[in-house]
């Protein structure tokens, strides 16, 4: 789910950047470092333009200047039970992997409807019910998140497609 979230970030700037363009430097630094990063709980999707930069303070001993930036950003945080769309990245016997934005989710064998079977001899290998549902690398798919775990800078998810209206999206 997407949220608008207020965040704070401390940015250290090298003395060589001190000058009239200092604001734009800070802005760039903020964008390159923060956008797309994952805190483990959520991913920062987009930083909004209105942000507040505190007065700089020179760090004793180094010469770097420290700025505290308050900004608003669109963040994405997955929840258990949420239904998400993603792209299949890898298909194996034990299930398949789905990329849902910054979250990598795995759909295990037990989470796949029993009529969809694994076919290892196909190239590339696929899960299929020998009808219109074919899950192979690159397939767009709708899944429901069953469990989440976060580490420092990444999230793991397990998902299911064993419910109504889940499964490959037929264009």
């Amino acid at each position: 789910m997407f949220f608008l979230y207020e965040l704070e970030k401390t940015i250290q700037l090298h003395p060589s950047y001190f000058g009239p363009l200092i604001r734009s430097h800070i802005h760039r630094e903020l964008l390159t470092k923060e956008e797309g990063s994952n805190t483990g709980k959520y991913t920062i999707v987009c930083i909004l333009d209105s942000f507040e930069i505190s007065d700089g303070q020179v760090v004793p001993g180094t010469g770097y200047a420290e700025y505290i930036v308050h900004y608003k950003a669109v963040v994405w945080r997955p929840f258990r039970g949420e239904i998400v769309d993603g792209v299949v990245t890898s298909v194996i016997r034990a299930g398949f992997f789905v990329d849902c934005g910054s979250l990598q989710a795995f759909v295990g064998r037990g989470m796949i409807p029993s009529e969809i079977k694994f076919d290892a001899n196909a190239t590339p290998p696929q899960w299929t019910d020998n009808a219109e549902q074919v899950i192979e690398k690159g397939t767009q798919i709708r899944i429901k998140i069953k469990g989440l775990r976060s580490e420092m800078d990444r999230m793991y998810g397990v998902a299911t497609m064993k419910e109504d209206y889940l499964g490959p999206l037929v264009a």
Partner: protein
Amino acid sequence: MKIRSPNDLHYPITVVDLSKQPKDSVERFAPLFTYYYESTVTEGNKYGDEKEVKKKFPARFDSSIDGQLVEWYIKGGSVIHGPGIDIVEIEEPCTHETQFGGLCTNCGKDMTEVDYITDERDIDRATVNMTHDNIALLVSQREALQAEEDAKRRLLGVKRLSLIVDLDQTIIHTTCERTVAEWQNDKDNPNYDAVKEVKSFQLADDKLANVAANWYYCKLRPGLKDFLDKVSTMYELHIYTMATRAYAQAVAKIIDPERKYFGDRILSRDENGTDQIKTLHRLFPVNTDMVVVIDDRGDIWHWSDNLIKVRQYNFFLGAGDINASFLPKQTELVTAAAQAAVVEPTKVGRSKDEKPSAETEALSIAAKPTDSTPKTNGAFSELEQQLISMGGGDDPTLLEQQAKEQEKVIISQQTERPLLQKQLLLDQADETSEVEEIAENGDVPAPEHQKQRHSLLHDDDNELEYVEACLRRVHHAFFEEYQRKRTGHQGGRVAELRGEKSPKKRLPDDLGNVPDVKLIMPRMKRAVLQGVSIVFSGIVPLGMDVQYSDIALWAKSFGAHVSTDITKQTTHVVANRSRKTTKVKKAARYPHIKIVTTDWLLESFSRWERASEEPHIIEVDPAEHGPHGASAGGSPFEDLEDGPLLSAEDDDPVITGDESNEGDDGEADEEVKLDMSDEKWQSLGEEFQDFMDEEGDSGEESETDSESVRSDSSTQNRRKRKRSTESAESSEAEDSDGSVSSAAGTKLQKKKKRALERTTSLSNVVTADKSSGLPSPDTTGPDEGQGDEDNGNGFVDDIDDDGAALEAELMAEFERESDEEDL
């Protein structure tokens, strides 16, 4: 799951009451039963008296898992005396067999949670990683077994085996030098034909600090397309490389654009778990009966029985394996230089210099810091990981160092461009030879003649054809045996089926008939060089155990016997064409010993059949046997005497490990020092040669004279030494005691002794024979040694007669020799 009595209770405990009945559902933390235990406590009363009292304490046992209670193994009143006793069986709704990133893929629960009640961590239930491209997905042992059986059945159904293919230097060769691109654009370049097929690519996530987007130039091994086409009908192909994932995928895109050969079965360093070795258990954790590996390096596979080692593909000379920096350094054979010599004599000097330098180590993609941490991989036991890290592999500082080194090398490759340099050198050589030609012929060369430049790169490798043939043979042998086994069991199985065996029970039986590649392949390979006994000479670098050198291990895997000294059993001496070592010369005297180059071995290895020795024979000129030997008419006594004398002339700058065995330890403590320049030495050598010629003529008579003088005493000594395994020093002392010399010059005498010792250690047949398990006295070896020594005495006595000048010469010789050996 059974719950057993845990370690941390106060045993013995007595069960009071069971709180749950079979078929009850049990939640985590729910009480299962109550019990009491007894303990002594110190109690005081109001008067300050203290006494020890035995008391009963009631307590509660909580369930550590969810599920339905199946069966109790205890009842009210039973006493549990210690840990490890079955208490209750609880059936879990989910056994967490497959886990992804610490989450069970079936129930979505977090497996990493640990609390006071946790008996066994859930995360330990699934520890096997058998996915090619993911390290977060782990499965349990049972699940892995099942997956593998499925895969096996599927492969047997389509009559295929699994083949693991290495990339770098096995089926492709990659360099980063942009000279290649320039050559590709220059149609006039002599290398144009060779490089025009080279594919190039860039890696997006290549983030070396100082090197911007880096181009990789990838040359496919000739015939690769054909090879993959044919082999993929017999094998399911996997890529297993020590390169990064991005690199592996880029290469896979080049060699398999439609992804029909490899699919997604690509395993790279990022998923391997260790940088040091490759192991089949990473992909096939339970069973490797149907797996064949092709790789150019045997050491990282620990010379597994599944391995077919192929000849290194070295197209861009000097580039080496660009992804090998994290592997243990490969010991470079002296052969490598020799091979280059065959191809292009003009650059031997350079390639010899360059081989050990950083260039072979080569450039690669920056080390990702995550690589240094050992990943959770069930296939590696703790011990193994530890062993690996003990070898220095996981040392972070070392890794950093390696990464830095790579960076340095990448820059040097881009700036120095060894290929270009080599080509320039080659061109220069061509020019000079042309100039010489002009000078010789006195003619003006034709204009097109001038344009003729030698090309540096040669696209003439045909190894893949042989590899394919070998793979075909293995495939054939495997399924032939499988068929035979199956039909053999058919009767039994039919009978079984008549009974009420379910098909499920039959299936494992079916797989029981699967033959083992690990048995079939070695059997086929061992037949290749059966009965061949090899001595390496001038091949294995100094300071290396010959028996454990790559080439020796390789030869052994083909059934050859490798020994360090020439014995009666020796059938082949493998040597360098350019270097006539003592062993080669010695072997040349026996017509049954074939002296061959390593090419013979390599050809046999790659074809899996004993190649004809003819094209690889090293001709040893009879004149080189030494004039003495030649004049003596080939009697073994006479011949072996040449050993010490010739070894002195054999002023070889490179001493190799296999040669150094010949030296005697006792020679290290040389007392006499003679300052000899090379020129002096040479003139002395000539003089000595002259003398030798003379001596050869008068050899017969002088021998008979001298034999009487000392032969008795010294042969005695010799025998003693043979029996005892004492050090050289002590035996030397014995020597000087035993032989009452006629001459006064004791120093020279010592030298002579050493010379004798050297001779015998050279033809140290006794020990070698013992090792081969044959009775030694019958062999000709000891006799030769003896006779040789007798002659030696005779010969040295002659020198005594000849005067002081010769004495000096001899000393100088020995001096020089010992110096060399000290190196």
